């Protein structure tokens, strides 16, 4: 739950329905810490894309798993981390989407990672032990 110290940690079940609920908590936490609404919108879309990828691809079984999301607000920057103990996967190695071809030729998909890269200022992936860790940074003007 939200803390007044600029830190938020969420443990999400690997169910897509959990993403919208998490977005509400992220919004409350960020608003309380002076993050502008437009920045909150971008952060929540980037988180959605990252968490959706994790839930859909990290675990080949149908079992219960957990996605860990943490947010830290320091000065005028949000640092968000999404991590899981699923199969090693670096989303930043996904090839960029085709943004040029016409309607019929345009591939369906491949946009999620593009959104994360476009909306955030910095994105980094690391494999930490048995975990995938995606770190996203977004700066915002002083409130």
């Amino acid at each position, binding site marked *: 739950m939200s803390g007044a110290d600029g830190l938020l940690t969420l443990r999400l079940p690997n169910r897509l*329905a959990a993403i*919208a609920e998490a977005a509400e908590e992220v919004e409350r936490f960020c608003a309380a810490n002076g993050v502008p609404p*437009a920045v909150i919108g971008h952060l929540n*879309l980037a988180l959605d894309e990252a968490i959706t990828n994790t839930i859909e691809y990290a675990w080949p079984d149908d079992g219960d798993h957990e996605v860990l999301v943490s947010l830290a607000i320091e000065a005028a920057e949000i640092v968000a981390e999404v991590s899981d103990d699923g199969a090693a996967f670096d989303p930043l190695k996904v090839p960029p989407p085709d943004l040029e071809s016409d309607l019929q030729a345009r591939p*369906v998909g491949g*946009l*999620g990672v593009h*959104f994360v890269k476009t909306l955030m200022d910095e994105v980094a992936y690391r494999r930490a032990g048995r975990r995938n860790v995606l770190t996203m940074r977004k700066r915002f003007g002083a409130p």
Partner: protein
Amino acid sequence: MKIPSEKTRNKVLVLKPEGRLDSNSVGAAETEMFAHLETNETRVVLDLAGLDYISSSGLRLVLMMGKRLSLKGGKLALCNLKPNIREVFEISGFISILTVVGTRAEAEAAVVG
């Protein structure tokens, strides 16, 4: 997710998805939207006035609709995008391959003409 629909006098099917079109809701939305398209609809407007949020999963569905309609000689137009929704269409590059207009009247004219 709820997708109210209506049919205009010009035989335009207007679909109005509401709320969030994301990875969680897209499966149900796809079933509902494509059920409409099965009935030989060729003029379709997506009125997004009630749509609060869209992710890449939702965009994928819109792209699939556009492809399916254009394959059978139909037309799709989108209107009433909230600023945050429009921004997502711009980042995805879909703005340049789909017909995105301001008002409902413009959208209906675009698919009838």
